C-alpha cells in the first residue's frame, strides 16, 4: 500500500493526537476519550483497515481503563485513549466503522465499558445467564469464585412479514464441526437474513494467559484454534520476542516458515475437499480428504505432531530439519502436488460443481472492506492483502511468492483463491527447505521486562492472526488475541442473503471459519 503516513497525520483533525514513534516501526498516538472514535474513523476513512480494537484494565497503575485501536495504513498505527472508571463508556465507532461492531460488544462483555451509540449493544460472548456487573477481564475479577447463573434472555433479530419463518440451527450440528447457532429468517427457500450467534466454545483464553508464564503460553497459544496451532504460536512467540528483544536465528525463521505453510496446505486442501463434499461430488471429496491425511502424516514425520505442535518456542524453535530429511520432504511434496493438480482439474472441469459454486454466497468488495474481512475471504472479494507480504515476518521476505486475488466474491472465487494459495505454499516450502541457512535454532531469551507493549501479525490459513501483549510480571498483563474468523463471520451474514437455505452449508464451508478462535 503506498500511503503517505506523514500526510495523513498532518491532515488529521487538529488537536486530536499526541504522536510518538515506537521502536518496532509502528506509530503510536494518544488521544482523549472524546477524540478517540473521531481519530480512528478518520484513519479508517483515509484507507486504514481496523486490525483490532480492544481494552485493558490499567486502573491499578494509571487509574483508568485504556482503549486501543490498531489500524493498518501500510504501517500499523496504534491509537490509545484512557477511559475513566467512573464514566466507563466511550463513543461507539460502529456506526461509522462497521468492523468495530463485534469488538465493541466484546469490550462491553469483558470490561463493562459501554460503547455509547452502538447500533446493537447485545452481549456477544457471555451468555444469557451471565450476571450483570461481572466482567472477567477486569483485574478485580476473581476467577476462583464461581459465577452464578441468572435468568437473562438473548433476543435474536426478528424479520417480520407474511410467510417469513425462522430456522434455528445448532449449537450441535449434523457434521463433525464446532458448536455455533445459526438463526435464519427465510421466506420459502431464500434466506432473508442470518444471525450467527457464537460464544459456545468461549474458554476464557485471554484471562488464562494473564496467569501463564511466557514459555508455557506457547502451549496455550497452540490451543486457541487447534487447526491454526502454528500460526497462533508463531504470532504469540513473535510478540513476546519483541517484548524482550530476542533476535530469532535465521534457521529458526525458515523452520517456522515451513511449518506455517504445511499448516496452510492441510487446511486449504481440507477446505477445498469440503467444497467437493458439500456439492455431493464424492470422488474429488474422497481424494482431497485422503490428500489432507497425507499432509498430516508428513507433518508428523517432520515435527512429530500431526497438528505441528510443540515446534515453536520463545526465541526460536525446538526441532531441527536435517538436510537429508528436507530432501525427502521435497520429493514427497512433488508427488502430493501432482495429486493436488489432478484434484483441482477434476473439480473445476465439472459443470455440475461449477453450477453450484458460481455466483453463490457473493460478498462484494464494498461489503468486505468496511467489515474488515481478511484472508482468502478478503482476497476472493478483490482485497489485495497478505501479512506475509505486507508485514513480513519469519523468512517470508527472503522467499518469492505471489498473493492470489480474485474479485468474484463467491464460493467459486474463495475456492480458487485457496487452490492458488496451495500452489504457492508448495513452492514456498520447497524454497525454504532448499535454502535453509545454517546456525542455531533458538536465541538466548532474557527476562521479559514489565510494562511494555508489543504485537505481531501472522497470515494463518484463514487470514491475519494478531497477538497484542502488555507485559506484566513474568506473565502477560493483558493479552489480546484476534483470530481471522472474528473478522469474517459478519461477512458470511451478508454473503448468504438472497441465497437458498440448501446453499448455506456450501457458503459456510467456503468461508471456513473457526469457532474456537473466534470465541477464545
Amino acid at each position, binding site marked *: 500500500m503506498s500511503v503517505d503516513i506523514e500526510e495523513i497525520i498532518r491532515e488529521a483533525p487538529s488537536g486530536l493526537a499526541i504522536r510518538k514513534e515506537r521502536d518496532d516501526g509502528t506509530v503510536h498516538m494518544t488521544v482523549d476519550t472524546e477524540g478517540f472514535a473521531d481519530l480512528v474513523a478518520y484513519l479508517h476513512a483515509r484507507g486504514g483497515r481496523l486490525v483490532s480494537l480492544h481494552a485493558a484494565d490499567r486502573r491499578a497503575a494509571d487509574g483508568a481503563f485504556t482503549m486501543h485501536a490498531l489500524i493498518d495504513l501500510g504501517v500499523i498505527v496504534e491509537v490509545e485513549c484512557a477511559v475513566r472508571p467512573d464514566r466507563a463508556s466511550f463513543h461507539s465507532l460502529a456506526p461509522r466503522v462497521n468492523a468495530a461492531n463485534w469488538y465493541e460488544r466484546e469490550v462491553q462483555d469483558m470490561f463493562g465499558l459501554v460503547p455509547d451509540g452502538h447500533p446493537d449493544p447485545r452481549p456477544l460472548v457471555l*451468555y444469557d445467564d451471565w450476571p450483570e456487573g461481572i466482567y*472477567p477481564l477486569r483485574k478485580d*475479577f476473581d*476467577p*476462583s469464585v464461581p*459465577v452464578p447463573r441468572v435468568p437473562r434472555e438473548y433476543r435474536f433479530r426478528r424479520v417480520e412479514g407474511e410467510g417469513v419463518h425462522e430456522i434455528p440451527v445448532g*449449537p*450441535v450440528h*449434523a*457434521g*463433525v*464441526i*464446532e*458448536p455455533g447457532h445459526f438463526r435464519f429468517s427465510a421466506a420459502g427457500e431464500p434466506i432473508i437474513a442470518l444471525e450467527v450467534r457464537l*460464544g*459456545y*466454545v*468461549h*474458554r*476464557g*483464553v485471554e*484471562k*488464562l494467559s494473564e496467569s501463564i508464564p511466557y514459555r508455557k503460553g506457547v*502451549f*496455550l497459544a497452540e*490451543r*486457541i*484454534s*487447534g*487447526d491454526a*496451532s502454528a500460526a497462533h504460536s508463531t504470532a504469540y512467540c513473535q510478540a513476546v520476542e519483541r517484548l524482550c528483544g530476542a533476535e530469532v536465528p535465521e534457521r529458526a525463521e525458515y523452520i517456522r516458515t515451513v511449518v506455517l505453510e504445511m499448516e496452510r496446505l492441510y487446511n486449504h486442501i*481440507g477446505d477445498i475437499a469440503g467444497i467437493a463434499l458439500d456439492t455431493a461430488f464424492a470422488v474429488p471429496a*474422497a*481424494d482431497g*480428504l*485422503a490428500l*489432507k*491425511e*497425507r499432509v*498430516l502424516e508428513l507433518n508428523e514425520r517432520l515435527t512429530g505432531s*500431526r*497438528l505441528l*505442535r510443540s515446534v515453536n518456542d520463545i526465541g526460536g524453535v525446538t526441532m531441527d530439519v536435517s538436510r537429508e530429511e528436507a530432501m525427502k520432504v521435497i520429493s514427497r511434496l512433488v508427488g502430493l502436488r501432482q495429486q493436488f493438480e489432478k484434484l483441482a482439474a477434476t473439480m473445476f472441469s465439472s459443470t455440475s460443481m461449477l453450477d453450484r459454486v458460481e455466483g453463490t454466497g457473493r460478498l462484494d468488495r464494498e461489503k468486505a472492506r468496511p467489515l474488515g474481512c481478511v484472508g482468502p475471504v478478503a482476497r476472493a472479494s478483490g482485497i489485495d492483502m497478505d501479512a506475509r507480504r505486507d508485514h513480513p515476518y519469519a523468512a517470508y521476505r527472503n522467499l518469492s511468492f505471489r498473493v492470489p486475488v480474485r474479485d468474484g466474491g463467491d464460493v467459486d472465487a474463495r475456492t480458487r483463491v485457496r487452490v492458488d494459495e496451495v500452489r504457492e505454499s508448495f513452492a514456498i516450502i520447497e524454497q525454504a527447505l532448499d535454502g535453509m541457512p545454517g546456525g542455531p535454532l533458538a536465541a538466548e531469551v532474557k527476562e521479559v521486562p514489565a510494562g511494555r507493549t508489543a504485537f505481531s501479525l501472522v497470515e494463518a490459513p484463514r487470514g491475519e492472526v494478531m497477538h497484542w501483549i502488555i507485559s506484566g510480571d513474568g506473565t502477560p498483563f493483558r493479552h489480546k488475541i484476534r483470530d481471522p474468523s472474528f473478522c469474517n463471520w459478519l461477512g458470511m451474514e451478508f454473503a448468504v442473503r438472497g441465497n437458498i437455505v440448501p446453499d448455506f452449508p456450501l457458503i459456510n464451508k467456503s468461508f471456513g471459519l*473457526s*469457532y*474456537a478462535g473466534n470465541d477464545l
Partner: protein
Amino acid sequence: MDEAAERMGEELRRRIIDLFGRSLAIREVDAGSCNGCEVEVNALTNAIHDIERFGMHIVASPRHADMLLVTGAVTRNMEHPLLKTYRAVPSPKMVVALGACAISGGPFGRSYAVVGPVDRFLPVDAYVPGCPPRPQAIIHGIMVALDRWEERSR
C-alpha cells in the same frame, strides 16, 4: 493405515457384530474443544482410516447414536447443549471422553468459562488421552468403551 491399527479395526468390527448385531452409530459433540480433536475425528472417515469398513458410522443426530464422543473441557456455554444431546441419545448408551481437555479440563480447566471435565456431567465409559489423540488411539478408545459396555450389561 499401519498394520497394527488395521488388525485392531478388524477386531473391533467383530466385536461390533457380536455386541450390536450390525454397526455402531457414533455422534460427536464439541463441548469446548480448540478443534484439534475435530481434525482427528474427521480423519477417521477419510479414505485412509475409513472406519466405516469396521462397522462404525458417524451419524448426524444423537437420536441415531449408540455412542457420544465428547471433546473439549465443558464450557459454561455448552453445558446445557451437551446434556440435551446426551438425553437425546436412546439408552443404552456409551460416552467416550476424547482428548486431554475432555478428560481433565486440560489447560482450560481452571477458567471462569469452563465448568469441568466431561465426567462431571456424564457417565464416561472410556477416556482417550492425547492432544489431540491420533485416529488409531480413537479407534482403540472405542474398543475400550465396548469392553466397558459389555461389562455393564452383563
